[in-house]
């Protein structure tokens, strides 16, 4: 009965077309195991949605959601189940939420967390659980002297962008004597360590290093100590660069200022005023990059959230691209963590929003670093100021120009390393 019904309702032509279409799909579709097909791929995000770090944390989630929407919630041919967890920006919260993602939600990969101390808090745990983790946290040593085989960093180490900045400041800006100023925490130490090492290698001299606490209502006492130099390097993060630059200009100082990825983040451009004009920064991502990958990302961000993306959103979008490509490389199968991790490490992309990326053997990214200068020229998307790219350092590794052995023989960059020397 049913056969007769089928036979009558489907004409020969439809049948032919259907077979052809089916065959095409079957042949072109990625060969994925049947089990993996049935269950969705589980993507977990550790971010910060409450507390002082929330601004960056919310951008992180927007970056992920933008990618998922663009790909219609599929990665490597599998449906994606997305779980987002709020760590509250503290290590104990990060640990509990990582457990939630791994043990309760059984995710296949973790994106995040944001801050270095959060990553340190879950570092042992993700290693023990063999959980592939793509973090935005910049803590140098986790891809250097204490590498974690399950951690992959597609953003940058703290010093990765500052080392080219040191080179640029010495060779192109021709600065000789620089005072550095940055918040008194690990991200700051590692940024300025990288700047100092590269700057002094090319003949510059860091004459003083200033470390205001993270919460400093007034930078004036620190700005008053800036003297005997011809340039300033600041490495502030969050909303601190806005306040610093304002007070720096108010104090009447005219030395050129250079900074890293957080000091002139594109997401800050709408809040900066004229005081930021001329600020030179080094960043792994730049809004100014005119490539298909970046234009698509920026227009989706504007469409979805009506906001101009910065480094945090771009970083997570790129992490998603890496996961997608890695999952494809593993044939859609993430169940064998070791194989999946190997597939993720082997990813090399040519058109991410930050340009081409690949990974070194310690799981850290090798990619472009853009030197930009803030000005009015070329401003888009309703912004008044614009980070204009003035130089691109291609395929920068975390070791900059030093051989890996030599770089790793030094202690990690800290408050006291490299030491201040007379020069």
């Amino acid at each position, binding site marked *: 009965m049913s056969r007769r019904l089928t036979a009558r309702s489907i004409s020969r032509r439809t049948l032919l077309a259907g077979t052809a279409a089916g065959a095409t799909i079957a042949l072109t579709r990625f060969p994925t195991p049947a089990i993996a097909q049935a269950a969705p791929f589980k993507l977990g995000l550790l971010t910060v949605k409450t507390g002082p770090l929330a601004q960056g944390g919310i951008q992180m989630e927007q970056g992920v959601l933008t990618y998922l929407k663009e790909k219609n919630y599929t990665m490597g041919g599998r449906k994606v189940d997305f779980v987002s967890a709020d760590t509250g920006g503290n290590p104990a919260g990060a640990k509990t939420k990582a457990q939630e993602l791994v043990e309760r939600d059984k995710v296949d990969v973790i994106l995040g967390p944001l801050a*270095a*101390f959060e990553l*340190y808090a879950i570092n042992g745990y993700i290693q023990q659980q063999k959980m592939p983790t793509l973090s935005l946290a910049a803590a140098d040593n986790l891809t250097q002297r204490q590498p974690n085989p399950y951690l992959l960093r597609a953003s940058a180490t703290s010093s990765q962008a500052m080392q080219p900045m040191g080179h640029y400041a010495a060779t192109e800006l021709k600065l000789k004597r620089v005072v550095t100023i940055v918040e008194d925490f690990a991200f700051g130490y590692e940024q300025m360590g990288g700047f100092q090492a590269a700057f002094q290698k090319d003949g510059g001299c860091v004459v003083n290093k200033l470390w205001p606490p993270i919460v400093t209502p007034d930078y004036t006492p620190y700005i008053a100590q800036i003297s005997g130099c011809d340039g300033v390097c600041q490495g502030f993060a969050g909303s601190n660069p806005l306040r610093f630059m304002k007070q720096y200009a108010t104090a009447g100082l005219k030395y050129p200022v250079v900074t890293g990825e957080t000091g002139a983040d594109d997401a800050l451009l709408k809040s900066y005023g004229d005081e930021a004009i001329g600020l030179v920064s080094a960043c792994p991502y730049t809004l100014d990059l005119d490539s298909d990958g970046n234009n698509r990302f920026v227009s989706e961000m504007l469409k979805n959230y009506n906001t101009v993306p910065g480094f945090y959103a771009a970083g997570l979008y790129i992490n998603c691209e890496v996961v997608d490509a890695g999952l494809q490389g593993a044939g859609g199968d993430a169940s064998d963590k070791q194989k999946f991790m190997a597939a993720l490490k082997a990813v090399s992309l040519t058109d991410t929003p930050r340009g081409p990326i690949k990974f070194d053997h310690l799981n850290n990214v090798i990619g472009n670093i853009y030197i930009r200068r803030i000005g009015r020229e070329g401003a888009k998307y309703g912004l008044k100021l614009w980070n204009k790219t003035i130089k691109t350092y291609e395929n920068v590794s975390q070791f900059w120009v030093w051989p890996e052995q030599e770089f790793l023989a030094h202690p990690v960059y800290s408050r006291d390393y490299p030491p201040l020397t007379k020069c």
Partner: protein
Amino acid sequence: MTGRRIAIVVAIIGLVIVPYVITEVYYVNIASQILLYAIFALGLNVLVGYAGLVSLGHAGLFGVASYAVAYLLAAGFGHAVAIPAAIGIGLLATAVFAALALRASGISFIMITLALGEIIWGLAYRWISVTHGDNGINVTTRPAPFGLPLSSARGFYDATLIIFLLAVASSAIFVRSPLGAALCGTRDQPRRMNALGFHVWMIRFMAFMFSGLLTSISGILFVYYNEFISPQALALTASAEGLLMVISGGAGTLLGPVVGAALVVIVKNVVSGLRFTVLSPMGFADLVKFVLNGLFQHWNFLLGAIFVAIVVFMPEGLVPGSVRLARAAWRTANRSKSARPAAAAPPAPVAEQKR
């Protein structure tokens, strides 16, 4: 009395079988966290509830023991050395804390403890050669007392439960002892106690030391639970959170801080991760789910709202407040019954004596 004993036995059995009822590792870990913070809150409660001294620096004491154990383990000492040494260091810090803070009471006491807590936070943050600053210290192993490893969630829960029960029992003994009674006396009438020949300062000092002991123990458990310590655990918000646990549950009761700790840990860790699936053409149920999702996502708003509700409806805290409401309900029920002559029920048993 017997009814109370039965309740205690039932509660202990209930706590022991928790990991057998909720087998999922994640929730066993949450239960461990509740017990760990309950010990911290019990310690703080000795001061806040029984001595009437509000401390805003207890996370600092918590941190001293945490950092001590983490530092000693990282330096290569065994657990058998690190744990007693950390308790010793915690007690030493408590003695210094107490000696300085007990020069005052009331608001000045709050300010001094706040300042001391911030000093310890600052040390953890800036004394980088010892504490590794912002990056914290990793602890890689948990101890294995009597050959029972605590590395599994269940093993850790059992160990925490034993310590928790000891903490509750010792708190109960302390509160019911003559010293505990004298402590309540110094809270209510310090000058009269002084006139009666009690050494008010010494009584408060002893209470502070006991509080410090419980706090240090919870700090050590915290390090073993997270296998990590960094300055955020010592921040002012952590002290305030402990205080909220005590006050929301009911200061000056044994059960209150435990309930408060459970409330804070559950909202912070479990509720914040809950999400309902909302279907796109919204019915009434979906609308409710949508609103709840928003609340869960902004869990600190939810926690704040709960605290406000507690302050409005049960200013004495959840545990005494519920007892009061239950008693009121019992009385209303009795009154309607007392119209009939034979139904003279005994008064409701009081689960928690205020003092």
